[in-house]
């Protein structure tokens, strides 16, 4: 059974000047165990798509099937990593990471234990009692990642997670994400990452969905079978990057 299936998803917003169509007839299927990147120009509705999958907003028409069943409201088997980190400024790193666990009714002792595991995994040791404002951007997104991992989601959703960071920090965090993804004891089986950086998609994902804008629709669905670790300087890497780039450019 497929993990996730989008069937003819459309989304439009009411706007002062009429309706704005953001997504139109978006359909695809994601199998269990896939790392999918969604790329496209800004305004192609990729973030909206992610929010519909999470259940933060309903589609105007169409269906989202999660493991064969139609979803209704927030899907608690997903967890989201936000572009802006979205950490509660008044909660410590540890309390922020425990947020999702608390919502799922995990007992305090278990909560603490699990938060500890993921603090360790993303390299936040020693920062448990720090507040977000005391952290650098990279450290903040580590907290965002740990908060999402801590609920041990079957599907991890990432909304441009590295685009608010400087280039060097983004490289480090991408490597760490891959480590987490490849480690055997991770409960996360699936990742959907939304990005506008084509290299990021090619470096990370097994499969790339290319969206075009106005309104957002699927224009290509590519398999990435470059061996990991992927080297950005290799010919095959660049060939794929160029291919995705020209796909987007054609439609613009």
């Amino acid at each position, binding site marked *: 059974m497929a993990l996730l299936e989008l069937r003819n998803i459309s989304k439009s917003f009411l706007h002062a000047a009429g309706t704005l169509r953001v997504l139109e007839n978006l359909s695809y299927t994601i199998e269990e165990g896939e790392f999918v990147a969604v790329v496209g120009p800004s305004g192609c509705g990729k973030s909206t798509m992610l*929010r519909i999958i*999470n259940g*933060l907003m309903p589609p105007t028409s169409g269906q989202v099937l999660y493991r064969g069943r139609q979803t209704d409201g*927030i899907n*608690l088997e*997903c*967890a*989201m990593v*936000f*572009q*802006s980190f*979205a*950490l*509660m*400024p*008044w*909660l410590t790193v540890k309390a922020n990471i425990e*947020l*999702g666990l*608390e*919502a*799922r009714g995990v007992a305090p002792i278990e909560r603490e234990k699990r938060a500890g595991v993921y603090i360790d995994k993303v390299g936040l040791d020693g920062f448990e009692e720090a*507040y977000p*404002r005391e952290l650098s951007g990279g450290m903040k997104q580590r907290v965002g990642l740990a*908060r999402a991992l801590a*609920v041990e989601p079957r599907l991890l959703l990432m909304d441009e997670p590295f685009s608010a960071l400087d280039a060097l920090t983004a490289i480090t965090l991408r490597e760490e994400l891959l480590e987490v993804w490849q480690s055997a004891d991770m409960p996360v089986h699936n990742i959907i990452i939304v990005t506008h950086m084509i290299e990021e998609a090619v470096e990370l994902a097994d499969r790339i969905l290319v969206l075009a804008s106005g309104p957002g629709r699927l224009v290509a669905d590519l398999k990435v079978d470059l061996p990991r670790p992927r080297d950005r300087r290799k010919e095959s890497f660049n060939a794929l990057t160029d291919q995705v780039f020209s796909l987007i450019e054609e439609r613009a």
Partner: protein
Amino acid sequence: MATDTITARRLTNGIIAFLLIAVFVALFFAYQHHGAKLHAPRLHVSARNLPYYAACSFLRMLAAYAVSLVFALVYGLLAGTSRAYERVLIPVIDIAQSVPVVGFFPAAIYFFVALAHGSRFGVEMAAVFLIFTSQAWNMALGVYEAVRTLPGDSVEALEVFGASGWLKLKRLLLPACVPKLVYNSILSWVTGWYYIIACEIITAGPARYQLPGLGSYLMTAQDKGRTGEIIAGLLTLLTIIILMDAIVWQPLSVWAERFRYEFAASSEPIRSLGMFDALGAIGPIVLRLIRGATRPIGRVSRRAFASARPFNPAEHPGLRRAGRALRIVGQSAIFALIAWGLIEGLVALIRTLMRPWPTEVRRIPLATLASLARIIVAYAISLAWTLPCAIAASENPRFARRLAPIAEIVGSMPATALFPLIIVFVIRLTGGMNLVSILLVITGMQWYVLFNLLAGVSQIPADLKEAARSFGLSRAATWRKLTIPAMLPSLITGSITAWGGGWNALILSEYFVYRDHTYQVFGLGALLDDATYRTDNSLMILLTLLSMVVIVIVLNRVVWRRLYDLAADRYRIEY
């Protein structure tokens, strides 16, 4: 060690500031017996005279606002641009803010009536002065904050181009003040209305002062039980407030948005669109009309000046010398005035304190506690309904959109206009003056809390709300982890303002004369009013007023300032 010296310094500052206030108040009382004989004009309670009375009150407000605006700009710009001025001006305004304006009124009347040699003009000046003191401080602080938080690079950008003096003021400092000044002006008008209604009729000792205006009209109409006239008066007031909002504040708010620095995280809400949507549409039209009307003036003046050579002060050494001389004269005049006031006030203070102390002085501590308890209850009740409202607004944007305009109208209606009716109604219903008093204090507190909370709620970042939902937080957990912490800074700001309003309302609410019957409860406000209206004992007025100032300052320093620092440190949202 270091904290000890800071505490000691703060304490000395506090004591010095307090002494300054004492001297200032006493100075006003030195004129107590100059203006006792004053003819109060008769008031004709008839709907036909309403336009005249409305115009009187409106002009009084306008005069006070004009003075406040000039004061706020000069004071705020001085404090914001010069470290030396800042060190003096900011503590002074901090203390001035905590003086209950209403208690100060009789003293102000004595002073201004004496100044105007017993003419009605003196009472007018006193009323304008009272409104000014309720309007000026927050505006001045707004200007100061706007100038101080100006992004450094925009200052540098102007300096790079060699801009200085007038150009810097015109292109950088004044525009930067606009958003905060507009926002605070709206607030100032709301407070202004609240007090003008209460201050147009005042009995001070043997003298009864009465100014023609909406406030005195409403009070007299209620005293005579003329329902039709009361309703007509209230409708007139409501009309003025709604028209002001539609014609002045809406267009100004829209205009002010242009001057907002995007990345300087705004502490004010972008105003909800209009009291009524229909009226909201008037705003842009008026704005266009004003622009259309002023354009020719600008064109003509530009043409007139286009031929003239730009004025360069360096080419006119005589003018510069004259300017310098003028500044020196002005500064010495101000210092002389301050010195005179200090000496005169100190003499008056000592003379007043040397008088035999009345036995009622012993009741002051207990009265303070009684009043404090009343304010705490009123505050708790205000919170009890505004907090759920704000939380509901955070969960339901449609409710927030409906609530904001209604609250805006109801909140701008000065409750003081209805005090006599409320008192009579509630006393008939329950017989308890204590309840009435608390109710009236609530009218002076609740809107500050509500408006600040709504502003706080509207600023909760969308991504934090999404995160809370995405992680499946329950409603209660969302309140605990997101809504309430996010509201804390604005809750505390609102509470500080509300408590200021509460002390003022207390003076108006613990003692009330209606149809020759005095309604009162035991409290600091009642002691003050009794001394003002009945015994005319300036020592007692001075002592109760100073007790009030002391408790307000102590509460501000011990409770609110600390909470505010905590909130600003921990619960601030920044990106």
